């Protein structure tokens, strides 16, 4: 059943997802979309954890819990990030990442 799929498929999936997320982080101009890309990255990681847990180490739930905590932390991260983004938006009226470059060199 699930063993027909093979761990490689899961990993390729997660890897692709991971790098799609990274790509998004690198090119999206909007701070919030960058944040969304981060979520993609974290999800990719979660898939890995869960798949490994299922495939090789079913005797305990380490991967599962790891994924759970990652979700929780992702939530806090998003919360704080959004708070900061909004605070920034109030100051400079934009959330275009390319305009957030008051400090440089």
């Amino acid at each position, binding site marked *: 059943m699930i063993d027909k799929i093979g761990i490689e498929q899961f990993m390729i999936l997660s890897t692709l997802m991971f790098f*799609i997320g990274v790509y998004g982080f690198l090119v999206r101009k909007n701070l919030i979309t960058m944040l969304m890309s981060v979520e993609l990255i974290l999800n990719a990681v979660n898939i890995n954890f869960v798949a490994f847990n299922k495939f090789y180490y079913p005797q305990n739930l380490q991967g599962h819990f790891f994924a759970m905590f990652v979700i929780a932390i992702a939530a806090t991260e998003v919360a704080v990030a959004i708070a900061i983004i909004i605070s920034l938006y109030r100051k400079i009226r934009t959330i275009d990442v390319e305009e957030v470059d008051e400090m440089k060199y």
Partner: protein
Amino acid sequence: MEVVLFYILAGMILIFSVLTVTSRRILRAAVYLLFVLIAAAGLFFVLQFEFLAAVQLTLYAGGIIVLIIFSIMLTSHVSEKLEAPGIKKTAFALIACAAGAIVTISTILNYDFPAYSGGNVDASMKAIGTSLLGYKENGFALPFEVISLLLLAAMLGAIIIAKRKEN
């Protein structure tokens, strides 16, 4: 059945991921992300981690996406189309990500993974509960407690930033 499901879900994840990072309408991107998250939850189901799938749906799909959408509402117009990123930037990012993906995937494929050895994972609520509050090996009481501290601190932080000036 699961194989088919997996491929469907995987396809969904990839397609919507790509859409998430390419869509020029920000709200749509958020919705695509939602689909990705739901598909991922589906994968968790396939892998028999029902609880995790539920957490994924509630926290991610329910919490985070809503948060993101709110913030989108606050900071941009719904109809607004994002500027397309510069070609140079896209190209460089693509090269880097493609290179990264190729390296990682080829490394993964070269790795001699053992055969599938899993049986059924005991991801029942009981098992999860015991583990979560266990303080021996494979118990997660400590991280569970620490993350509460994190949540509190982050919440406070978010509040003091987001709070408007009181004058």
